């Protein structure tokens, strides 16, 4: 047991751990910040979020990752405004023009990333492609995190045979290789013949999103479950049970807030995998269909013999995928570090 354990980030916790854990000294200085909380009922969670972002930006790697991810997110949001040619299938340009991007002069030129064999501006297509990847990977991750954590919280808190059965099902799903399962699911749903405009058809259009959700629900559920198992033994949960609180109250009010940090870590990790999965499916021809400006699809369309003619039409979308995946990974690493430190 260390006499003084000093936490670099939070000076108020210069306290010992261990059994004779006594009066942790809390310096009044930390209370000064609490003044606003009376005006604005800020919760402990939003305070943690601010801390999280602060920690993220402090580390160079995670700061770069976060900045890049944010940059791509802006592209996704304002792609149509930012792209010089908002129609991705505008074939009005000369085909196979070389990139005009000039780093030395910081000039973009007419077609910064060149044009492809059909005369489409690659620069615009890369920018416009961001929105679909964010939409599909992001929403897919969101759905899987929401459903997966609800499932995991329930299993973890309930325990017993419910947990046992659901746990086995989850283990079984995890045994199937993700990409294989994705291909099979996409293949099946694509081949079903739905009436145009029906909800099934809408589902089929978003099949990749759906697949991501299905693939990641079990993984998120496992993480949520194991965190819940840890939290449910805490005495504040027992105190709530003694008060006769309902199961839903205990799960969502008492346990969930403590599980959120690990869920945030998991979500950011899932997101980076989802991006890669969307790109892979696009590349294999199971994702977006031509002529949509999907990065994976663009790589596929321009490989083989076309690569000799217009290497840039393959290289730039590939670069975009690589940079985004790495950026999100760096960010997710930073989030994990920050959470482990305890924000």
């Amino acid at each position, binding site marked *: *047991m*260390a*006499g*003084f354990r*000093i936490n*670099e980030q939070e*000076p*108020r*916790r*210069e*306290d*010992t751990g*261990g*059994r*004779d*854990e*006594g*009066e*942790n*000294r*809390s*310096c009044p200085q*930390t*209370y000064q910040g*609490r003044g606003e*909380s*009376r005006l604005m009922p800020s*919760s*402990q*969670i939003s305070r943690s979020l601010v801390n999280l972002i602060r920690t993220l930006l402090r580390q160079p790697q995670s700061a770069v990752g976060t900045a890049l991810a944010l940059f791509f997110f802006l592209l996704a949001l304002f792609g149509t405004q930012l792209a010089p040619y908002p129609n991705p299938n505008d074939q009005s340009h000369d085909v196979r023009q070389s990139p005009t991007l000039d780093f030395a002069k910081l000039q973009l030129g007419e077609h910064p990333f060149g044009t492809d064999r059909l005369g489409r501006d690659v620069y615009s297509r890369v920018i416009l492609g961001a929105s679909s990847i964010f939409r599909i990977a992001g929403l897919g991750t969101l759905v899987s995190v929401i459903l997966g954590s609800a499932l995991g919280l329930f299993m973890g808190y309930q325990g017993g045979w419910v947990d046992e059965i659901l746990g086995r099902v989850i283990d079984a799903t995890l045994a199937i290789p993700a990409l294989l399962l994705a291909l099979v699911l996409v293949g099946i749903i694509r081949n079903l013949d739905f009436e145009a405009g029906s909800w099934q058809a809408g589902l089929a259009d978003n099949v990749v999103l759906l697949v991501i959700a299905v693939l990641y629900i079990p993984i998120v559920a496992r993480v949520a479950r194991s965190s819940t198992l840890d939290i449910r033994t*805490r*005495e*504040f949960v*027992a*105190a709530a*049970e*003694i*008060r*006769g*609180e309902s199961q839903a109250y205990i799960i969502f009010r*008492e346990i969930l*807030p*403590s599980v959120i940090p690990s869920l945030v870590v998991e979500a950011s990790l899932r997101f980076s995998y989802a991006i890669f999965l969307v790109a892979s499916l696009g590349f294999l021809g199971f994702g977006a269909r031509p002529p949509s400006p999907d990065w994976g699809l663009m790589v596929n369309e321009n490989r083989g013999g076309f690569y000799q003619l217009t290497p840039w039409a393959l290289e730039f979308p590939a670069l975009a995928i690589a940079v985004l995946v790495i950026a999100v990974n760096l960010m997710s690493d930073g989030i994990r570090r920050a959470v482990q430190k305890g924000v």
Partner: protein
Amino acid sequence: MTASDRPLLDVEGLTISYRVGKTWLPAVRDFRLQLGAGEIIGLVGESGCGKSTVALALMHYLAGNGRVESGGKLHFAGEDLLAKSNADMRRLWAKRIKFVPQNASAALNPSIRIGKQVMEVLKASDGIEGAAAYESMIDMFHHVNLVDPERVAERYPHELSGGMQQRVTIAMALISNPELLIMDEPTTGLDVTTEAVILELVRDLIAQRDTGVIYITHNLGVVAQLCQRVLVLYAGEIMEEADVQALFEEPHHPYTLGLIGSVPKPGESKHTVRLQSISGNPPSLRRLPGGCVFAERCPLVVDLCRSDKPPLESLPGDRLVRCHRWEDVDAVVQPPSKSLPIAMEGDLPTPLSEVAPLSNGLGRASPITLMRVTDLQKQFPVAPTAREALRRIKPTPIRAVDGVDLQLRAGQTLGLVGESGSGKTTLARVIIGLQERSGGKLELLGMDVRNSVRERSEDVLSKLQMIFQNPQNSLNPYLSVRQAIVRPLIKLRGMAPAAADAEALTLLERVNLRAEYADRYPDELSGGEKQRVAIARAFASEPDLIICDEPVSALDVSVQAAVLNLLAQLQEEHDSAYLFISHNLSVVGYLADAIAVMYLGQLVEVGEARELFQPPYHPYTEALVSALPVADPTHKTERILLSDNLPSAQNLPSGCRFHTRCPRKIGAVCETDAPPWREGEAGHRIRCHIPLDELEALQSDLVLAGGSD
């Protein structure tokens, strides 16, 4: 300084700093120490006062963010440790300077057999290997009273109990015959019975060698029983240093006085004395006061204390004190009462009259039986092994609670004591309904109470509440203090949110917390403050019975006293009953009206607190009582040392469950027949084959109760 003319360890003006961000904060300032060979010096103080920092610095083993400031002196056997390189130090650590950590299970490598780990020490220290090493290891294991050393050597750490693990670490430390041994709270996580054994062991082993020992602890009882000299550390500074007798008889520093006063002594109860506590918290390292570091919490503070730093004065009788007013401390501590006539009570400035003992005598507890527990059972099923499953054998369940009968009167405190593993907490959790009982009856005010909290009516729920052991875990970190207290008010008392808000503030006031605490979150509270909030939350539903499961064992002594006082005071105001579970007999003795002693799922003795601390005792109670480290060096009892092998609750001993460890076992009858309950005076009951008068005759020396004085 006793033995030799040249001290083994000579420390002067040692300042130890930690780097926080870009600044270095002096965690320990101007530390001094002189330790002779064969001497045991105790280092006491609250947590966070720098005890462990000192230990690490004395070994010249500070972490990368710590350093010893230049100008200090650290001489070990005449050599300057501060000038030594890491390689030199490693040679010293291998043989001459040893460390025994608090947490033995973390200190032993879980993947290496015990024998190999211990022999590695010998190889490093003396280059002894093979058969010679094995022999001296087995010899050492005999010295630390490890039963069956050959088998222990074959085991992995997790196969040993906590007490055995600590013996192994002590054996590892002593096997190289070190000159200096630093022990950092080696018994803090152990049961009193095991603690007594380890302390005895340390004392014997040190007496045989010429090892100098620095013993770090927060437990004054341990210091009083073990050490020859004591250093009191506060906020990184030495407050007082003296021989142990002198220190306890005549503490010169108000901090020492506060520490001693905050521990309940045998015979003291809530009816006779209020415990002293030290208000406030140690100062932050970032903002150390210019004057005396203790000024803010000192009951004797004067303007001088805040402006001028007191020097460490040498006093006659080879003692040191750092206080401007030590002579006044002397004056106030003199008889008749050993307590300060000044309130050292918590955050509220209580006038003296209110610090006076509680008036209610034993008779005050009303005759209404609040709760009656009859033949309560709790078994945990054990998953069958593959072999058992194949042969369709049902494995024996773990019988954690096995036929307990208890009665609690309204307004009464029933103490429940026993070693860890005796089933105390399971009993509590079954009563509160967190776990379903396997059999038996539970009646509250004459009505049957259902098994689990989920089936109980809100009326029953509101009557039963619980205070938990660990303040870190008992409050939800994401809910503010206000939210934590308001919820039971709305849920169990049906209050409107506005009314509940107002009531929450009243409750906070009751537990001596200012209203502004309502908007704080648990991580902004100290351990004692958290426990106060937990107490307020438990009292919110106006319960008739509160189960307190080790509510003070995670707190520092000074804080512990404040919480105990608060519990006693609230009980008087609300007339609520407590089922008070603790492994600490002196705490139970202070707070409880009646005490039940539990061993392996059964009660072995029940009686009024007063009766329980004097003969006749159940042999198990006798061992517990004799093992109690009393914070008074003049208090000497013949310790009854129990083996630290608690039988497993899955494979319970036949006959009397205690017979495997009982020092008073009379023969085969103990192994075959379950002992009968023997009735003594005033409802005192003992479950033993030995008749009460015989027990009384055997145990006449051991009296702890206040009845005799």
